């Protein structure tokens, strides 16, 4: 078993360092190992911990669940990097993916207790990092694929959050079945179809935002001076009659009518910088002579 672990660690390291030789890159020697076999050996390492059957056969503890999550995360990350290396994406994109995977592996090293498993994970982490230098810029010509890979990287970062957060929760709060669902979402985030769906969804949201129909307000604390002005503007808006509200809404490019007041108030809330608030303040001054 120890020999397999060593072979797997060395194999994965070599596969990741020399990964782009699969492009037939000039200046790269032929591979003298079987990448698929190396991955298979890593899968064998996590066979029990990362299998659903293995989890149900275990004590079904938080630790068992977390080992399952970590195993699947690491395998998914390794497959993902191998997957994107097939395409002519730029070094920054691969570096980004490698960084995410390295974080995952490092997390696994921290959380997984067994020393042999730590060793193999450490080797994978080293392989992921050192493989950055082997990217040959001559292959980075594609224009479309990098957009998809960039989106996949972003989606994978987002999809990883509930898994990492979930590992800190009890089994009641973050059941194993939810982890399986989240892991599937994490896998799908690293596919072209997932990236296309995300881009499509985002463009739809942007279109809706442009129409002023739907946009989520992401609020942060604003400086006191700006908040004093926002508060004064909101208080003044509450005193306006419907005709004045319609006038102001129209000037701000918002729908008029019954929802005018709420739309104006949410526009004030959205104004989290002085320049963006000044647009509203100017309208109040111009229309009603109100200075805020």
């Amino acid at each position: 078993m120890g020999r397999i672990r060593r072979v797997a660690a060395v194999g994965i390291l070599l596969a990741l360092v020399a990964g782009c030789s699969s492009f037939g890159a000039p200046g790269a020697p032929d591979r003298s190992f079987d990448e698929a076999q190396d991955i298979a050996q890593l899968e064998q390492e996590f066979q029990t911990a990362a299998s659903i059957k293995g989890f149900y056969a275990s004590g079904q503890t938080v630790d068992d669940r977390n080992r399952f999550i970590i195993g699947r995360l690491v395998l998914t990350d390794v497959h993902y990097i191998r997957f994107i290396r097939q395409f002519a994406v730029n070094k920054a994109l691969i570096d980004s993916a490698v960084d995410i995977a390295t974080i995952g592996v490092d997390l696994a090293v921290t959380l997984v207790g067994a020393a042999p498993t730590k060793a193999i994970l450490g080797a994978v982490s080293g392989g992921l990092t050192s493989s950055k230098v082997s990217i040959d810029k001559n292959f980075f010509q594609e224009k479309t694929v990098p957009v998809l890979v960039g989106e996949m990287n972003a989606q994978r970062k987002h999809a990883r959050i509930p898994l990492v957060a979930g590992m800190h929760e009890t089994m009641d709060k973050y059941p194993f079945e939810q982890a399986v669902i989240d892991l599937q979402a994490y896998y799908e985030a690293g596919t072209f179809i997932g990236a296309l769906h995300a881009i499509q969804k985002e463009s739809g949201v942007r279109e809706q935002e442009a129409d002023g129909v739907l946009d989520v307000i992401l609020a942060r604390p604003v400086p006191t001076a700006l908040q004093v002005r926002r508060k004064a503007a909101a208080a003044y808006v509450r005193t306006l009659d419907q005709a004045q509200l319609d006038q102001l809404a129209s000037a701000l490019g918002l729908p008029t009518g019954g929802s005018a007041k709420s739309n104006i108030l949410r526009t004030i809330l959205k104004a989290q910088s002085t320049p963006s608030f000044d647009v509203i303040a100017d309208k109040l001054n111009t229309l009603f002579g109100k200075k805020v």
Partner: protein
Amino acid sequence: MEKETVESPGSLSLADFELTIQQSEEIIGPLTALGRNGANNTFTLLYDDVPQNLAVLATYDGDAPPARDGHTIICTGDCLVESAPAKVVAYRHT
């Protein structure tokens, strides 16, 4: 009555999360709910008069938040505080 659900980064400290909610209450109206959406927290506000006393947040352990003298509990939620899961309760001084 119309409601507005706002998001704020889950990376904020409890103090900044509270300040964000208080500043939002001063513009939209009273807080009614807390929650989480992925890496962000969510809070729901009612389009209504600005409350006299703004919401105050605290984290707690266990099933129910502790009572606080002179305060009512507005709502509770599973949120993120500095990116870590936390149970958060919102109080309002009566």
